[in-house]
């Protein structure tokens, strides 16, 4: 089956990906109007547009809602609805009934076009989803929403008929300022769950970054306080350090990367920085009879002073030989 929807590329590659537009297939169409749109001519102009290249059936909204007429299952390639803003508002409590009828009347891959929408009907997309439609485009500013019946009518299992209408948001506003907001309406709960878990990979996504406020985009600016003698030193330089600590750290890092290979293990001997080698040699020479004037050197770095010759070496016991495997030290 050829797809009904023709995906038009965005007008310009420079613009962000836009919602797709769909062009109805040239099969039988159903136009649904109302008293208001019949009076102002919108309904007639819709019908004459459609009649240019296909067969068009006409229905008035009231007749469908009252159950005075029943649509032939899977008859229409497209259904087009045009109502006034006020009529859309009045329709909302009964929209699920209408959508279920239209869903049944559409053939698989048939499209539903809801025209002249007031921008306030923000829940219509979710109602459509609940009724089993796949949203093809929603252009609230242009007042049109296009939805499609899936190829396989999985929507019939998803469609939630006769579900109770969500209570107005005023209910929560009237509640005490602090209370956990729980509403026990089971229909509403299952409707929400159906929406939330609907698996439609092609669903358009929002640009979440646009939700962030300017304050959200800020980050704390690390303060860089010069080291004060006697005060505890901030040992971690902040990213934009100006107090010299970053340079100190960089210097320590550079020194720590001095290549040292241990000749004892695998026979390799490699030059190390003179001062470092002297220090290590002194530490190793002292190790067999390791003593400590402060009594803390054996205990490890946690208890050694800043200038301890053993810093960086593991803890050891007094008199114990300091053993350290530098053999793999090949960086």
């Amino acid at each position, binding site marked *: 089956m050829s797809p009904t929807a023709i995906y038009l590329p965005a007008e310009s590659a420079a613009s962000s990906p836009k919602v797709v537009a769909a062009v109805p297939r040239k099969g039988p169409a159903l136009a649904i109007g109302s008293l208001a749109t019949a009076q102002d001519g919108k309904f007639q102009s819709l019908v004459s547009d459609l009649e240019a290249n296909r067969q068009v059936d006409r229905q008035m909204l009231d007749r469908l809602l009252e159950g005075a007429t029943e649509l032939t299952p899977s008859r229409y390639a497209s259904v087009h609805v045009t109502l006034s803003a006020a009529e859309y508002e009045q329709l909302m409590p009964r929209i699920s009934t209408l959508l279920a009828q239209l869903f049944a009347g559409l053939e698989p891959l048939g499209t539903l076009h809801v025209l002249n929408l007031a921008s306030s009907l923000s829940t219509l*997309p979710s109602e459509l989803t609940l009724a089993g439609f796949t949203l093809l485009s929603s252009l609230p500013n242009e007042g049109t929403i296009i939805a499609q019946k899936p190829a396989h009518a999985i929507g019939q299992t998803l469609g939630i008929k006769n579900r109770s209408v969500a209570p107005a*948001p005023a209910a929560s506003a009237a509640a005490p300022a602090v209370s956990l907001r729980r509403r026990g309406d089971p229909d509403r709960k299952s409707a929400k769950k159906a929406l939330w878990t609907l698996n439609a990979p092609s669903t358009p996504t929002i640009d979440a970054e646009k939700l*962030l406020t300017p304050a959200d985009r800020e*980050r704390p600016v690390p303060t860089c306080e010069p080291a004060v003698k006697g005060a505890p030193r901030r040992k*971690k330089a902040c990213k934009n350090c100006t107090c010299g600590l970053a340079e100190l750290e960089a210097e320590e890092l550079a020194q720590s990367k001095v290549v040292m290979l241990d000749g004892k293990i695998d026979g390799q001997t490699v030059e190390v920085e003179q001062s470092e080698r002297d220090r290590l040699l002194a530490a190793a020479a002292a190790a067999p009879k390791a003593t400590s004037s402060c009594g803390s050197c054996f205990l490890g770095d*946690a208890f050694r002073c800043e200038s301890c010759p053993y810093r*960086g070496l593991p803890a050891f016991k007094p008199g114990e030989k300091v053993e350290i495997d530098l053999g793999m030290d090949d960086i």
Partner: protein
Amino acid sequence: MTDLTDDDHPAADALHDVLVLYATETGTAQDAADRAARHLRKLRVRARVLSVDQYPLADLVHEPLVLFLVATAGSGAFPRPAHALWALLLRADLPPDLFDDLDFAVFGLGDSGYEKFCWPAKLLERRLQALGGRALVPRGEGDDQHPLGVDGALLPWLDALTGALLEFLPLPDGCPPPSPASTEDALPPPRVSFRPAPPDSPPPPDPRLADPRYHPATLRVNTRITADDWWQDVRHFEFDFAEDVRYAPGDVACILPQNPPDDVQTFLELMGWEDHADEPVSVHPTLGDQTLPPFLPPRTTLRALLTTHLSISAVPRRAFWECLRWFLQDEMEREKVGEFLSEEGADDLYAYTTRPRRTLLEVLAEFRSARGRVPREYALDLVPFMREREFSIASSVTRHPRQVHLCVAIVRYKTMLKVPRRGVATAYLAALQPGACARLIIGLKRGLLSLPPDPATPVICVGPGTGVAPMRAVVEERAAQGATGECADTTLYFGCRSASKDQHYAAEWAAHARAGALAYRLAASRDAPPGELEGGRTYVQTLLARDAPRVWARLRAGGCVFISGSSNKMPAAVRAALRSIAQTEGGLGEAEAREYVEGLERAGRLVEECWG
């Protein structure tokens, strides 16, 4: 002790059952979630603490109260366990009242040194609010740069949360509201108990094998692919599966590393646990609100726990010290830990552990007076959990059925400590000897990249260093698809330092290029001929800029750009190059070019898979 038995009244029960979801890659957010749960316990609130990928997301619309603790991955990205949740939340068709039954609070973990500080937490909070959720307290932002680390913001956030929660869940009369700092004023019971298990029962199967994404594998190839005299050791690994496996280019292989047996033995001796290390035990959670290591089998031994499930080579976190101090017998050691945990001593703790990357094992060699004093059950409270590591798969399964290849840089570096530091996972992999004995379990999971469905769509891969791993999968798969033409639709920008030393898979790229399946561009940053350096070193972004008309033609044709590698300056520089191409070649203004590149990203045509 607070009694948390179930109340008959369902609503009251729900009140006392708060969901705590964390999203972590390194475990810090998990730690914070455990900490939050310990605090909630004092408020008589029972927490269910779960990684967001263990939670059935369908139920989220029914939760009344959820705390989210969300780390920041890469440059402002969601940690992988949160990807599914975030993908759901991003859908444009969600109604604005979807979460109007939800009260929530978000705590982010990040590093203010990065531009997109706590970005996922910020996005999550704003999105939930846009869908009707109510934030109980303002978002907390844990900053790695804070002297107290995450705790610097976590404790005030828990304080605020306490105030908000007590509004609906008042404590019995006369109970003072606890402060988070006082949460740790006594030694908590261990989170698990061990019970003797029958010694002769066969070991239970690895829990991972119950997940269809996990497969037993054996290592067949472990080869160094950088020159022998080169400073960096990069390995090519090939694993064999006994069964057919499915994965796509861009997918990742998850591997749970093991600690070397010597390290485990040393740890057991330092704790005085060596005599009981091999007794079979069954592990039972005792605190329902504290998390356990992933993939913990019901029966094990202490040695096996310390080998596979606990990370004794991790740098100890504050939770380690908070637990250890209760067992230290030596006055000086106890005093030192007290200092480390105080605000004034935070810098000293940082200088002692975090900066030199001192391991928990090394710390225990210096704080020895707890030896023989710590009940074995506290192993799971002292030691951080071992975490799976994710590696971008470097092979196409079409080309190599029943195999997974990895391209991994072996992590080794020096700090002020004389013993070199090693990456836990890469050291484990590097030491594996190929052969039937090298058995392990590999999980195959979705990555961020995915190939365009139409093989004719141009693909531009930017993968310097080991970032080339997923690109090898892409190139192999597209070559196998026959996506070749007069002008190859696949372009690879590879960056290294030296063409002869660390140009990974050079011969393969040349062969693909000869076959017309690949346009290969090499940026060898340190190989520049004399005199050319004035223009700066050549990086992948330099080559992109040089290829501007070619790149633009492919973007105009609906092409995709994949970026993979270290999340340093490279990904940002590549984006800047693309923006500049959109300006010079597409005639877009600066703002339009920015919007164009961001649009590519939203449309899934520009994908970045980078790691820190």
